[in-house]
């Protein structure tokens, strides 16, 4: 009985700890959101400051280059198509990989081609 009691007690504290941990995890999830928002805010301000000074000459290359950067979704596509759970997600991931790669590779290449002309 003694052992049983001790065990029950242990289970009790253990459950509490788990509850605590779960709460902490949930908390930290929300904090991940907040830090995501913080990062978003900073990047938006930074983007605005970076581009504010761009001369008209570079509008076209900037659009095509930044468009290539927005192909960063490729990272998400790889994550989606690379999981083992397969099926529909892999299919969607595959489509996304194809499209994002077109965007990335085509975008950077064509920008490079254009900018070559600006070099003297």
């Amino acid at each position, binding site marked *: 009985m003694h052992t049983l009691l001790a065990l029950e007690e242990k289970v009790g504290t253990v459950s509490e700890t788990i509850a605590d941990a779960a709460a902490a995890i949930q908390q930290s999830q929300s904090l991940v959101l907040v830090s995501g928002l913080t990062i978003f805010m900073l990047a938006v301000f930074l983007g605005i400051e970076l581009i504010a000074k761009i001369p008209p000459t570079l509008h076209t290359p900037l659009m095509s280059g930044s468009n290539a950067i927005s192909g960063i979704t490729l990272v998400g596509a790889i994550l989606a198509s690379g999981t083992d759970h397969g099926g529909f997600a892999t299919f*969607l991931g595959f489509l996304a990989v194809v499209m994002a*790669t077109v965007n990335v590779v085509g975008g950077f290449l064509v920008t490079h081609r254009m900018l070559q002309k600006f070099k003297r």
Partner: protein
Amino acid sequence: MSPVWINLSYLVSAIFFILGLKGMTRPKTAVRGNLYGSLGMLIAVIATLLAAEVVSYVWIIVGVLVGGGIGTYFAITIKMEKMPEMVALFNGFGGAASVFVAGGDLWLRGALPPESMSTSVIFSTALAGIIGAVTLTGSLIAFGKLAEFRFIKKLKPLPGQQVINGALAMLLVALTAVMVNNPGSGWYWLIVLIALALGYLLTISIGGADMPVVIALLNSYSGLAAAATGFVLGNSVLIIAGSLVGASGLILTQVMCKAMNRSLPAVLFGSLGPAADGPSADEVYTNVKSTSADEVAMLMEVASSVVIVPGYGMAVAQAQHAVRDLTNMLRERDINVTFGIHPVAGRMPGHMNVLLAEADIPYDLLKEMDETNSEIEQTDICLVIGANDTVNPDARTNPNSPIAGMPIINADKAKTCVVIKRSLSPGFAGIPNPLFSADNALMLFGDGKQAVNDIIAAIKEG
């Protein structure tokens, strides 16, 4: 790699994206900036491939090979004047990728315990779907319009479209709320469908002078879609890269609005209707005087200043190298030659600059619109090559014109204005141009490249 290392790699990749964008703001560093950007992408992709979640590589490799092949092929073979279309198409692909990634993630979460479906994640998923889908159809329509496909021109906005758009937007908000409370792939794809329709409707009704604004805006959207996907996956590099692009697109949109003298709401929800009360071509073109290359050559020989105003037609005719030769020839004869660059000449912001740079025309001859306009009355000859809407005085004088209020290059105020184009057919906005029958205007009909070469030959002979 452990999550921490992967995230540190993402940090490095984000730094390269920032340096890349920064580099792209100056002609000297732009090439390097683009390389930095692609390096950042490479780092992010490699780090992701090494993530513990990624276990099967087959489809990734196939996808990258297929996508890379297509991208490379188009990037290398596309002609410079077609580039705007291609960039629009690529932009649409980026939006589509966000739709699929968010959808795939949602599907995977279906198999996980419900805690993984936090409100913010589901909300971000819906957002990524909406922005991505709007970007997709919007870019496809923009692509069609830029490529000047016939059938796109035939697609007319529905009557009462404003109301329909508003209703669709409300519906999206409502469905998002439903989905947040009741996460499921079904709702997601419904949302995506509606957003696709919205993207189509929003873009189909925008035309003429407003397209540059829309193109910049779609650029911004593709970034925002990526950022929303970043919130779905809790992935900082997606958030950073996406919002950098979103912000830069927003700034460009603003720049375009200013250049077109439009407000953003006016572009998005602005008056539609094909300006039925505009004068017809027959009314306008009563006094058109046609000229010959020889006559133009003679005019040039006695001129002391020439302003060349290039437009989309110069790109179509691939005339930029011929134009450079003409420029050099005139400058050798001590004639002062400058170029008047309208901010939306061509089919993409800054398009003319790229084309003229391609032909090695020195930067310092390229003047912005305002500078050109301030000197145009003292200019002997204004040579318009394949430009139309950007020199249409209707924008200045006719408040009912679809391009009313857009600043133009005042080619009609030069002492003599010579216009090179193939016919009297209209430009992108589809409206007649009173410049062509102005008293001081002479039309040199013909293909842009051929006409310029004819002028060169005539000057050599003369």
